């Protein structure tokens, strides 16, 4: 993607079903392919997106199919930005325990946000105007990764 390339955007409104996650996965993977984001980068971006959506659907919207999840993605030179918003009641991210602490290693839950932070360069949680959770995730694309398409 050259420095003067246009910003590629994708906007989605999803239902609160786990099967809807695949729709967003495909859209973001396609966006990555349209830009010069290689398969390795795309894999980790989609992994982080999947965790954000699973949290939005399960913990945010509590699987209420009447509630929506909004996804906004933008791919510009060297940077992919994803925002996921739910219609839940929000939560205190500081209360989420460290899943790598010895006492938490065998807990079956609580790794989603950790994975998001591992695979994206920046993850910020906030509130939507309606009180739901808004999560912003940014991945800085490596220069070497931006010059190869569909590498695997």
């Amino acid at each position: 993607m050259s420095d003067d390339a246009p910003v590629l955007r994708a906007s989605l409104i999803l239902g609160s079903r786990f099967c809807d996650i695949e729709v967003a996965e495909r859209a973001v993977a396609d966006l990555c392919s349209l830009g010069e984001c290689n398969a390795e980068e795309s894999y980790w971006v989609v992994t982080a997106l999947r965790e954000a959506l699973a949290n939005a659907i399960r913990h945010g919207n509590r699987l209420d199919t009447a509630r929506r999840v909004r996804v906004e993605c933008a791919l510009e030179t060297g940077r992919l930005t994803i925002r996921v918003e739910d219609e839940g009641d929000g939560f205190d991210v500081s209360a989420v325990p460290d899943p790598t602490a010895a006492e938490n290693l065998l807990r079956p839950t609580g790794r989603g946000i950790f994975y998001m932070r591992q695979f994206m360069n920046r993850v910020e949680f906030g509130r939507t105007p309606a009180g739901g959770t808004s999560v912003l995730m940014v991945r800085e694309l490596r220069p070497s990764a931006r010059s190869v398409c569909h590498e695997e």
Partner: protein
Amino acid sequence: MKSEIRDRGDIRIIGLAGKVTIGAGDVKIRELIDSSLAQGKKKILLDLGGVSTIDSSGIGEMVACYTTVTRNQGQLKLMNLSPKISDILQVTQLITVFDIFDDEQEAVGSFT
């Protein structure tokens, strides 16, 4: 997610393929493990060679199964992790929890 079950002596080998993700493969793993334990198979080897994607729910279910099998005086081990799945286990330090093998013969021989 697809699964294939076979036994080598008293060792149950469960091959998984496809996506092990929330709402899909995660519950299936639990069912496969529960079924094995109910059949008296307490030495279980999960072959992840065909798994393309695993999310935190899939990982969490494997952890829960590890705990369940251990509590039943059994052993749960992993085999044929892709580099990406290995990375995912590495960052959460679960690589220190599971016994992991690349070779089936070696894995089978490790059960006590």
